[in-house]
């Protein structure tokens, strides 16, 4: 990566009047393979590179980015960033103040055993073709689809405080999906997790998913769903599998804990948050067994990294302790408002995007239950697997989450399969009604590769450590 270009950008920004500048020079390569109904439907490799320059001038922010990595273009882009900041400054109340931070110099690289880009394409296609063939043999399956995707991001971050950080992060994941259509009813089943699972690992992660071992079950359950009755609309006890718990964390704890939302700077699109500043360290968000961390240091988590896009080292902090809301996800600018230092949550999805406060790995710490004991301990309820689509209001209170599949629980046993289950409620109520969490043996850091935020929309990789958990008095259905 070109140190000279990076320095040129910083020097130009300073010369043009920036009091602070940082630069991200990013090179991304992505490979995506999709097999559908036995045919390779997509086989594509994308390279995406450029430089984003963020500055403070006249006490306000400006940002400009270019993919033309020549000295002349970088000078032009840095000057434009400063000009934009000066335009911002014509409508400010206060100067931007960042937390105090020592310069950071470092390197970070995803620990991987097998570089996915070195695995032959034929081998990867062959895996998906084999999966497809297993699903094809299950009578009643109408559509089969499987996908692998890999991204390697090489980024240099440098700032006018002499910080210089180089990171290489490898994102890896995949999904298999079977669909059965019978008489106007669609049964769809996927593996793993919430329609796919992703980590910062190498190809060894794909191997660990053992797609071939799950293909037949996935296809059979898709067919069975077309015969299952619709989930009843009742109030009952819900046991969420790990991936469902993960999406519950994402929507009802992760997003409302973003301090930029709380301070109103995302209100025009993503919305605000009910976790207002007066609730910090006071508000009961969950039952006493609910402990939530933001932890970017977990090896392999999809939201793991060495340093955020402001050069702040990855950290582990608590958002909820013993059920009490106790922390936000912060940036260098927002942390100052609550008298803290950034906990390293600022990330951009591209060289062409500005960093925003994003979830890292937001985790529900494990409890003590075995899943089979938890089901056996439940007289009546439902066990839900594989999160579908969530919907939640702009204050992150009223949520609705659907699952791919559910099994009614009666007298401590999983019984009848039901299709299109969903549940809804108020976000703090469900966590206050959480009375059991499964143990570390069931705990997994689930990857969400498509967390959206910002305007224009940025799509971010985030993770959620979660085990199956039980929630009482939940309203099923619409």
């Amino acid at each position, binding site marked *: 990566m070109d140190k000279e270009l990076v320095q040129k950008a910083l020097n130009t920004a300073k010369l043009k009047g920036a009091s602070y500048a940082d630069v991200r020079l990013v090179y991304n390569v992505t490979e995506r393979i999709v097999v559908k109904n036995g045919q390779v439907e997509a086989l594509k490799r994308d390279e995406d590179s450029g430089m984003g320059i963020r500055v403070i001038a006249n006490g306000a922010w400006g940002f400009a980015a270019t993919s033309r990595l020549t000295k002349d273009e970088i000078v032009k882009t840095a000057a434009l960033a400063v000009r934009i900041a000066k*335009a911002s400054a014509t409508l400010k109340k206060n100067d931007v103040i960042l937390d105090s931070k020592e310069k950071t110099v470092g390197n970070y690289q995803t620990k991987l055993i097998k570089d996915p880009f070195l695995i032959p394409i034929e081998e990867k296609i062959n895996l998906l073709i084999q999966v497809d063939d297993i699903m094809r043999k299950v009578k009643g399956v109408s559509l089969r689809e499987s996908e692998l995707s890999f991204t390697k991001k090489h980024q240099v971050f440098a700032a006018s405080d002499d910080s210089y950080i180089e990171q290489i992060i490898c994102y890896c994941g995949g999904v298999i999906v079977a669909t059965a259509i019978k008489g106007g009813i*669609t049964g769809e089943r996927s593996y793993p997790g919430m329609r796919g699972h992703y980590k910062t690992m190498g190809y060894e992660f794909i191997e660990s998913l053992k797609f071939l071992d799950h293909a037949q079950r996935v296809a059979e359950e898709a067919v069975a769903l077309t015969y299952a009755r619709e989930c009843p609309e009742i109030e009952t006890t819900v046991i969420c599998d790990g991936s469902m718990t993960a999406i519950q964390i994402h929507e009802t704890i992760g997003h409302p804990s973003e301090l930029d939302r709380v301070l*109103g*700077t995302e209100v025009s699109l993503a919305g605000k948050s009910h976790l207002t500043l007066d609730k910090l360290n006071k508000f009961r968000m969950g039952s006493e067994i609910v402990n939530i961390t933001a932890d970017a240091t977990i090896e392999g988590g999809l939201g793991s990294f060495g340093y955020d896009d402001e050069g702040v080292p990855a950290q582990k902090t608590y958002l909820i302790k013993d059920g009490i809301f106790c922390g936000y996800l912060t940036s260098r600018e927002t942390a100052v408002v609550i008298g803290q230092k950034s906990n390293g949550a600022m990330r951009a999805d591209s060289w062409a995007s500005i960093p925003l406060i994003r979830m890292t790995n937001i985790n529900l710490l494990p409890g003590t239950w075995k899943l089979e004991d938890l089901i056996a301990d439940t007289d009546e309820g439902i066990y839900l697997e594989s999160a579908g689509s969530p919907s939640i209001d*702009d204050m992150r209170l009223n949520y609705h989450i659907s699952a791919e599949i559910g099994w009614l629980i009666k007298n401590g046993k999983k019984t009848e399969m039901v299709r299109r289950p969903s549940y809804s409620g108020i976000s703090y109520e469900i966590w206050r009604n959480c009375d059991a969490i499964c143990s570390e043996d069931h705990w997994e850091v689930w990857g969400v590769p498509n967390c959206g935020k910002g305007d224009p929309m940025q799509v971010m990789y985030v993770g959620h450590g979660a085990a199956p958990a039980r929630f009482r008095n939940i309203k099923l259905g*619409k």
Partner: protein
Amino acid sequence: MLDRNRVRELIKLSLKPIDMMEVGIYSHVRGTTRFANSVIHQNLSVEYPYFWTRIVIDTPRGKKIGGTSCTQLTIDDIRRTVARALEIAHNSTPDKRFVSLPKPEPHKGAKATKPVDIEEVTPEERARAVKKIVKVAQKYNLDVAGVIHTNVYSLGVANSLGIDQFGLNCDTYTTVTAMSKTSSGYSLAMARYFNKIDFEQLAEIACQKALLSQNPQEITPGKYTVLLEPHAVAEMISFLGWLEFGAKAFAEKRSIISKSLGQKITGSNITIYDDFNHPQVNTFPFDYEGVMRKKVTFIEKGVAKGVVFDSFYAHLLKKPNTGHALPAPNPHGPFPSTLILQPGNIPLAKMLGMIEKGILITRFWYTRVVDPDTTTITGLTRDGTFWVENGEIKYGIKNLRFTINIYEVLKNVLAISKETVLSGEFTQVVAPALLIKDFEFTGKTEY
């Protein structure tokens, strides 16, 4: 911004004597100014070019296809990207279903149509527009947030069979959210040109909604008569675009329309079509395969009529290509470029007067599919929800969760406004306001 000559030069350089090859260059210069708490807090300018190629190699067992893309447009980078695509295509497995990239259409005029005057907007101009918005909000002692996007695009597509298209375009998109301590109001404007946007008027609309909805009252979820303003209508209709109006869902028999062609699926007062020539929309006249767009009617007077196609699905289902390809490969298949819900003949101003008891809705939020088999979606109201009695807004109400079957809702449309508005987040929707009976709310929230 890349001009026609530069795009042609790069495309010419890329095209190789291979069985079939497609090359495209999309370039986007985006200016964005976001404001919140009545100050500018995010302000940026980005030039994002995107070169892609798709290579098709003929084999006795089918076509092998490989694709690559890059954002570096140097000659070396493009050569390397093309070489990689060829390598990937060789390493792929044959696809028996793929027939051909599109060929030029026999009639002439299949070139990019009338040139568009391009308007580039400076950060200073965007900042001045925000100041106008803030000034209006300050008059009412309200806080204001929102965004101004100004975009310039170029798109060139060519293939080895003779397709050769280039177009330039620009647009602007502004939202305003005005806020009191207990309420909010919203307005949105989309246009080709920045100077066509009346920023003060936009701010005024958002502020009036925020003022009117202060101290909202709670109502019980259930079925109500609703007046959906155009932005709410646009969001609902755009879900039909995803679920129903593309050839992929049609070919896979997943959509209702795939089983109902020629049958009545909504009320007779509903007609929905795609037409890039509609005066309110603003898209390239050709798709990402370089095929000219055609007008497609999805629903006419309540009857299911058709869906949009790209070259792959046109060959697969032996139907005409309607020019609705997205960049290949993509998971959606062909996709409507515009959705136009035909207006009615009732002035919007009179529609409120038609409500004895009901709800006025400004917009929806976080709408998601619950059951694609029935086009059931759920979401929430936001930024201006009002209780209406005897034709008058009585007070603001707390936001509600709706869960509806879109086609069933479109059977219950009592009146359609004469006026339409350009809206839509992912696809452009020209929407009137709709007065609807028995619209179901299934939950409530706390504000």
